[in-house]
Structures are given as structure tokens and as C-alpha cells.
């Protein structure tokens, strides 16, 4: 049932405002691809183009290898789940779920009020449909809710009904636009698991729009990040976390966010933080200001050290269950804040107001040039200021 999806050079503008430019994207059959990015970057627009609700200005959409640009949303055999569920409020849950099948299997006169009672085969088809609804409802555990109208359901229940309506036609492609963003935190975590499980069970291709990077990281096989209408990076969650292609991706993925420190590359190619070398070298021929990215868990604090190290003052310490988050101010310029994550059971005295030396393993550091692109790094043999 699962199908691949290929987008080639998709562009879209609303009036003069360009929203998407030349998006190339291939989604393998059965994949769970998350589409992430800041608000207004065009995620919903791209999803609507895939669904056929919006027409692209240029480029091609292919589903299962077949161009679908001239097909209606229905003919594309996709299902879509909307942020606010978009259930028909005057229909019961069962009627909502049944609608796609009714439209598929009954002719227009057979669906019209009054006239429909003339049809002889309608009863038979409706019976078949209602048994299919029963199966889907069972899979999503919403059988007791089928008679209720959407107004009488909780957010999570509505979400499940919307999912059932999407599933019932056995589409090749599931499109979801921030389906969990209207739920409270606990339910969101629960539904996250359910969706992942559903994806595993159905084996269908999922395209999942979210601005919540944790959802993207935990659920997807791959993440595509849009930024300013362009594809900033596509890769596995680990790829995006460990090798962000740009400053925007680095900042977006990871919670708490990555620490970005202003640094520079001296003429010898060494990366200098403040006045101290970091033990990193930039690629050949590169000099000038750069940004140094350090994930909170990759920073080590040293309370007593005589080596030349960048120093930072502890502002406060937060208890996060298994972890502790330490908020520090970099000593040179008090502007730059720094967040360090340490395991709760790590020994050491962390007193607000105290000053600590900062160390990190060079191979864990990320380097970005002034336009935010990732730079390759190489560790120098002599590690100054770095703790192994």
C-alpha cells in the first residue's frame, strides 16, 4: 500500500511573496518524514501542495512514481489530518469516518437527502462501510465514541476520530499538519507514541509537519528542515543533531538549544575563543569571525584548573530530574549565556556566583562561518583548553 513521494524543484509564491523555492525531496515508501522549521517557513504550504489543495507555481509532485499534478486530492489517494481536526461538527464520529467511503462508493444521487432512499443497493453498501468503520474504530479504540458528535469529544478523542477518517480509505500517503499541537503536554506524549505505533502497524508513508523538534526527533525516520522557503537539511534525527548543516538547523534541533559562541579564526587557521585557542582548526584559507556551536551536554566545567581556559560564572542551577542544567555567563563578555547539561549524579560543587573553566572535546564542536554554513573542523594535535 505504501508509496514513495518525489518533489522536484517545487516553487510557490503568494502574490509577490515567495514562500517555497526549488524544493527537492524524495521520501521512500514507508518512511516517517518530519517537516520542521520556524513558523511561516512554508511547511503547511508544502503539505497542501502535496495534498493537491494548493497548486505549485513550478515543479513536479510524484506519488508512487506517477506525476499527480493534475489530479484532485481525492484521486491522489492521500489522507490528511489537520491541526484542528476539521471534523464535520454536525455529523457523529461514525458519520465523519464514513464520509470518504460514502463518497467513494455511492453515486451523487444516492447521497442526496430524500432521493437517496430510492436506491436499492445503498443499504448493502452502507452495511459494508459500517463494518469497515468498526474495524478502524477498534484499532484506534474509539468504538464507544462513534455515536457522539465532535463537540462532545475531548481533544485527544477528536484527534483519534480524525485519524480514523484518514485511515479508513487506506491511503498510500498520510499527511499531517501539526496534529498534536492542540493537545496538552501529557496527551501529546501519549499520542506521539500512538502515532509511531500506528505508522509501524500500517507501514504507510507519513509526512508529518511539526514545529516541535522533540516530536520530530522522536518519531521520524528522517527530518527535513525548511528555512525561508528552502530545504535547509534533510537527514536522520541523529544527522541533524550531530552534523547540523547550518546555524539555523543547529539552533532548531536540540533542547535546550545549542550554545553558540562568537569566535574567530586566526591567520594560522586556529579557532580562537576570546583570547584563547580552542584546540580546533578551521579549513584551509579560512579566517575571520566564526560561530562555535557546543551542545549543552558536551561542555565540561572545571572548578580548579590552572590551564588557560575560557571562564564562566554560574548564574543558577536547575533540577530536571535525571539531569541538571547549569546557566552560566561567559566571563569575557557578560552578554553570552551558556547552558551546560550534567547528569544529576555527577559529583562536584556547583555554587551560583562561582567561576568555572570551560572545556570540551574538539570533535564535538560545530563551526559555522559568518553566513551560518557549517565548516569542517580538524582537531589540533596539541589540545589547549580542552579536557579529554
Amino acid at each position, binding site marked *: 500500500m505504501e508509496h514513495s513521494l518525489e518533489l522536484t524543484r517545487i516553487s510557490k509564491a503568494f502574490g509577490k511573496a515567495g514562500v517555497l523555492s526549488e524544493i527537492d525531496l524524495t521520501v521512500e515508501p514507508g518512511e516517517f518524514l518530519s517537516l520542521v522549521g520556524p513558523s511561516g517557513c512554508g511547511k503547511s504550504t508544502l503539505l497542501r501542495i502535496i495534498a493537491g489543495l494548493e497548486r505549485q507555481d513550478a515543479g513536479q509532485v510524484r506519488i508512487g512514481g506517477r506525476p499527480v499534478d493534475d489530479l484532485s486530492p*481525492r484521486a491522489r489517494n492521500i489522507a490528511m489530518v489537520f491541526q484542528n481536526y*476539521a471534523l*464535520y461538527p*454536525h455529523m457523529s464520529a461514525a458519520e465523519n469516518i464514513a*464520509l*470518504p467511503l460514502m463518497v467513494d462508493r455511492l453515486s451523487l444521487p444516492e447521497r442526496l437527502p430524500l432521493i437517496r432512499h430510492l436506491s436499492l443497493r445503498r443499504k448493502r453498501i452502507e452495511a459494508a462501510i459500517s463494518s469497515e468503520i468498526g474495524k478502524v474504530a477498534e484499532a484506534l479504540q474509539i468504538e464507544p465514541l462513534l455515536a457522539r458528535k465532535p463537540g462532545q469529544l475531548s481533544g485527544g478523542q477528536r484527534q483519534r476520530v480524525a485519524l480514523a477518517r484518514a485511515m479508513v480509505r487506506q491511503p498510500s500517503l498520510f499527511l499531517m499538519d501539526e496534529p498534536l499541537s492542540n493537545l496538552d503536554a501529557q496527551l501529546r506524549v501519549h499520542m506521539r507514541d500512538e502515532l509511531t505505533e500506528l505508522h509501524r502497524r500500517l507501514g504507510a508513508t507519513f509526512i508529518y509537519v511539526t514545529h516541535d523538534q522533540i516530536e520530530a526527533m522522536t518519531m521520524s525516520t528522517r527530518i527535513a528542515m525548511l528555512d525561508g522557503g528552502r530545504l535547509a537539511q534533510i537527514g536522520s534525527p541523529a544527522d541533524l543533531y550531530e552534523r547540523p548543516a547550518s546555524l539555523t538547523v543547529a539552533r532548531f534541533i536540540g533542547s535546550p538549544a545549542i550554545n553558540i559562541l562568537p569566535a574567530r579564526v586566526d591567520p594560522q587557521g586556529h579557532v580562537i575563543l576570546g583570547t584563547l585557542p580552542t584546540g580546533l582548526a578551521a579549513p584551509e584559507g579560512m579566517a575571520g569571525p566564526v560561530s562555535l556551536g557546543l551542545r549543552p551536554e558536551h561542555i565540561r566545567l572545571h572548578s580548579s584548573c590552572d590551564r588557560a581556559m575560557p571562564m564562566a560564572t554560574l548564574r543558577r542551577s536547575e533540577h530536571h530530574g535525571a539531569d541538571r542544567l547549569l546557566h552560566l555567563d561567559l566571563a569575557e563578555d557578560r552578554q553570552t549565556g551558556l547552558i551546560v547539561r550534567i547528569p544529576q549524579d555527577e559529583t562536584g560543587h556547583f555554587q551560583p556566583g562561582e567561576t568555572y573553566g570551560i572545556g570540551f572535546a574538539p570533535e564535538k564542536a560545530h563551526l559555522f562561518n559568518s553566513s551560518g554554513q557549517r565548516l569542517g573542523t580538524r582537531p589540533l594535535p596539541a589540545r589547549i583548553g580542552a579536557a579529554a
Partner: protein
Amino acid sequence: MTTLALAPAIDRVPQRSRPVREWLAGTLFVVPATMLLLAIIIAPLLCLLILSMTDYEIGAMQIRWLGLGNFEKALSDPVFRRAMGNTLLYVALVLPGGVILGLLVALLVHGRTRSRAFYEVAYFLPVTATLIAMAAVWQFLLHPKLGPVNGLLKAAGFPEMGFISEPSLLIPTLAVIGLWNLIGFNMILFLAGLTAIPRDLYDAAEIDGAGGPIDRFLTVTWPQLAPTTMFVAVTTSITAFKVFDTVAVLTRGRDGSEVLLYAIYLEGFQYFKIGYSAALTVIFLAFMLAFSVFQAFQLDRRVHY
């Protein structure tokens, strides 16, 4: 917090128990609204009801209590019965016509993008035009000899029609003029309803395969417009029941065009029989009330989800 702080202070007032105090306070709060309601609505209605059981006439020196006499007279009066029948016919023409045409125009205008503002104003103009003045225009348009409508009919080979002279055509003619006056208003109400329909629902309908015009209308537009439709139906029927100005100007309530409000006007202000006219008004109000309540209950079941 405030209740906690205040509680001891209140408790020091010993004489009355708590329920009595609450009852007193509640009554005091209700008094102003009740007085207003009494003065503005209940009192005039009571006046009307009392008048309707007397033979009061303007200028009369004495007044007699008739009980239900006025009502008996009204219900056996052939003129009044015709007025009731004609009014119901008028409502039966204007109510469905006003709702369906208003919705149709709203759907068409809603689909426009740049020309929408123009159409909105154009259709709304008849609402702002005073019906009395426009009735003169209609009188000319429908004139048997000079009017362009009959001119067109004749050119198309039809016989000349006495739109405002032939008794059986009077109510339909008045209904058309009433519709002309009303559709713009209903259109604006429906447009407001249409604008409030979430775009997501149309998207969902499209995904579900219900994207064709008829399916879209039946699955999204019509059910979503149910509250608007109910409101439009109630206001339209009230307006229709109150048909008066076209009758007063175009036909003077001539044979075939007697309607309730005009009958009330004639009895009260032409023949000065205030008591009798009050009785007619009571019947009129009872009609309106029954009709509105019926509509509200009928439609309510479908509107609420």
C-alpha cells in the same frame, strides 16, 4: 481571599440568618431589571390586553367591558379572515423566497474576489431605499399600459397582466416587491455566515472526495450555515408578517390585498375603534409568537451540534 477577609465582618451582624440575607440581596439585585422590564414591555402589553376587551373608541365618553367579544367578532369577520389568509400567503411566498434567494445571492457574491464589494452594495441598496418611495417606482414599472414590465410581456406575446389591479395577483406582486426589498439584507447575513466557515472544513471535504460543488454545499456549507439560516428565517418571517407600507401605498388594502397590519391600522386609526384594533393586535402577536416559537424549536434540533 476577599470572602475570607470579609466573612468575620458580616458574621458580626447578628439578626438575620444567612439564607434570608442572600434572598434579600438577590431580590435587590433583580429589582432594577424587573422594573425596567415591567415598564417597557409588560405594562404596554397588559394595556393592550385590557384595551382589547373593551369597546374603547377615540373620543368616546364612556368605555364598556366586552370580555372576549372583540375576539369573537374578529374571528367571524370575513374581512379579517381574508386579512389573515392573505398575510399567511404573503409569508408563505416571502419566507422561502427570501431565504433561498438570499442564500443563492450570498453564495454567488462570496465567490467573487474583486467585484465582491460592488455586488454587496448593489444588493444592499434596496434595503436602504425607503419602500414607500420605491413603491411609486414599482407602481410605474407595473403599470398596465405605461409600465415596462407589461411592455416586455406584450413584446414576448403574453397577455397584459394587471399586477396591481387583478385581486388574485395582488399578494404575489406585493411578495415580489417585499423580496426585492429583503434579499440584500438576508444576503449580508448569509455572507457573514459564509465568512465564518473554517477553511479547514472545505479542505477536509476536498481530501475526502466531497470537493464537488453539490457535495461541498451539503457536507460543509449548508450545515455550517444552519444557525444563520435559522436567524434569517425568523427575521424574514417577522418582516413578512408585518407587511404594511407597500399595501398602504400601492393598493390601500383594496379587495384581495387585505393584510393583518393594514386591517389593524384601518380599525384603529381610520375608524378609531381602538378596542377592536387592540384585539386584532393581540391576535397578530399571538400568531407571531406561535410562529417564532415553532421555528425556533423545529430548527433548533437541527442547528445544535
